[in-house]
């Protein structure tokens, strides 16, 4: 597997909140007291369990603490390691798990301020997504407006499995705020655990959970298209993070087949779902689910009918490959350049501004 070309833009890496203590200075006085008084634990979920291989590559795992919590190591292993020009921090802390809207909002603000101070201020190659509390989309929109003033925040971050499918109008204040601020919405693997992670019930094993993420992405993408999010917000881009991508054409062929026969249910869906996805949807490449023969990979990507949809991601510190070989075999040099550079710049207007 090849290295990414020098100067690549890494669209998904994960600085870790070392512990809830790190966020205390960034919480409002009331919420800091509440965390202590109520004895609020770490907002960890069953996503990325500490010892699961997916959570941290062994050579990126510290003796103590979490992989990705140390800027010095992240700088050396991810930024210098891949030679990235910019890397987008997607902080996965369990803000979305909380049942109280107010506390979730407080934690979202704390996480964003913590990222700005502890990471972005210290490393100019880093950019970040705005963590929001989807528990209350109006609060989420307010947080987008607050953080968007800082141009180092280039995206809004949500989890793929929330209370309900993400296309529902309940969430539209988030998309409206994202579009208004020229920010794509990144939808990351993971769950608020309001429902089982598969549509047929709780699975038994981690492998099932991991494989089920792409089903959640399929359903979410279907919801965004059929509910008319892209018709309502024509400038909006959605980036699927840790989604896998091999499923995309087949799933949209299937959706397109049903759309042809049931068009009148959703008259705002005015073209084939794959055409809509080509305009509005981007996907990161790690972890990738590719055919066993490298030659078949480019054929698979041809089914996208677009070379603009894939974005480079290292997914640091999650374990999907060895060394710096983060580009799947079978992708031409020209396509690598699109994936690592042109496509991210076209997707993130704020990165484009930063290079011109």
């Amino acid at each position, binding site marked *: 597997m090849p290295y990414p070309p020098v100067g690549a833009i890494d669209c998904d890496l994960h600085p870790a909140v070392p512990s809830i203590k790190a966020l205390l200075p960034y919480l409002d006085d009331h919420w800091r007291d509440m965390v202590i008084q109520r004895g609020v634990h770490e907002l960890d979920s069953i996503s990325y369990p500490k010892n699961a291989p997916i959570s941290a590559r062994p050579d990126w795992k510290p003796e103590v603490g979490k992989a990705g919590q140390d800027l010095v190591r992240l700088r050396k292993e991810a930024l210098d390691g891949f030679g990235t020009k910019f890397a987008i921090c997607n902080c996965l802390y369990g803000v979305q798990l909380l049942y109280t809207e107010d506390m979730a909002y407080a934690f979202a603000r704390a996480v964003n301020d913590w990222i700005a101070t502890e990471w972005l201020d210290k490393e100019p190659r880093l950019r970040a997504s705005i963590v929001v509390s989807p528990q209350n989309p109006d609060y989420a929109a307010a947080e987008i407006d607050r953080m968007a003033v800082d141009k180092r925040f280039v995206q809004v971050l949500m989890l793929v499995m929330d209370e309900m499918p993400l296309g529902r*109008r309940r969430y539209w204040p988030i998309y409206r705020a994202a579009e208004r601020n020229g920010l794509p919405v990144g939808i990351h693997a993971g769950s608020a655990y309001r429902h089982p992670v598969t549509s047929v019930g709780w699975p038994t094993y981690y492998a099932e959970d991991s494989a089920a993420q792409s089903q959640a992405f399929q359903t979410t993408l279907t919801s965004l298209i059929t*509910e*008319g*999010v892209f*018709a*309502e917000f024509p400038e909006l881009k959605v980036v699927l993070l840790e989604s896998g991508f091999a499923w995309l054409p087949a799933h949209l062929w299937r959706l397109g087949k049903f*759309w*042809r*026969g*049931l*068009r*009148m249910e*959703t*008259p*705002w869906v*005015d073209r*084939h779902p794959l055409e809509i996805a080509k305009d509005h949807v981007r996907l990161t490449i790690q972890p990738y689910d590719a055919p066993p023969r490298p030659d078949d990979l480019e054929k698979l990507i041809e089914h996208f009918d677009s070379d603009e949809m894939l974005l480079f991601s290292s997914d640091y510190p999650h374990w999907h490959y060895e060394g710096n070989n983060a580009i799947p075999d079978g992708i031409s040099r020209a396509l690598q350049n699109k994936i690592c550079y042109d496509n991210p710049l076209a997707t993130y207007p704020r990165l484009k501004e930063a290079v011109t």
Partner: protein
Amino acid sequence: MAKHIAAKVEDIPPGTRVSVEVAGRKVAIFNVDGEYFGLRDACPHMGGLLSEGVVIGLVEANKPGCYNYSRGGEIVRCPWHGWEFDLRTGKSRFDPKRWKTHSYDIEVGDGKEMHAETVDVSTEGDYVIVKF
């Protein structure tokens, strides 16, 4: 363009449709409030008989949640997989440029001096005439 008698007017009252074979062609003829429309009676997808489809109106949207309903009865849904076709043009709704079925001009006349294969032409009454 030749004219072919397809049916007697009273065989296709408003709101109904028939399937007829005229000079070797299967034609679905719909009567929408006294206006006649003719389509090749085979869906371009897999050949479903459009004459057996349900007719609905045209549903359009300029934004999500909006259902602009017009032209009641002028869209037929193929009975097999639900594709919609415009009775006036034969064009599909989802991709009108690429997917369409042939549409025929229809007129009503007295049928004098016309040849008919399927209809017993008498001197009395009007006939539905397909042109191709």
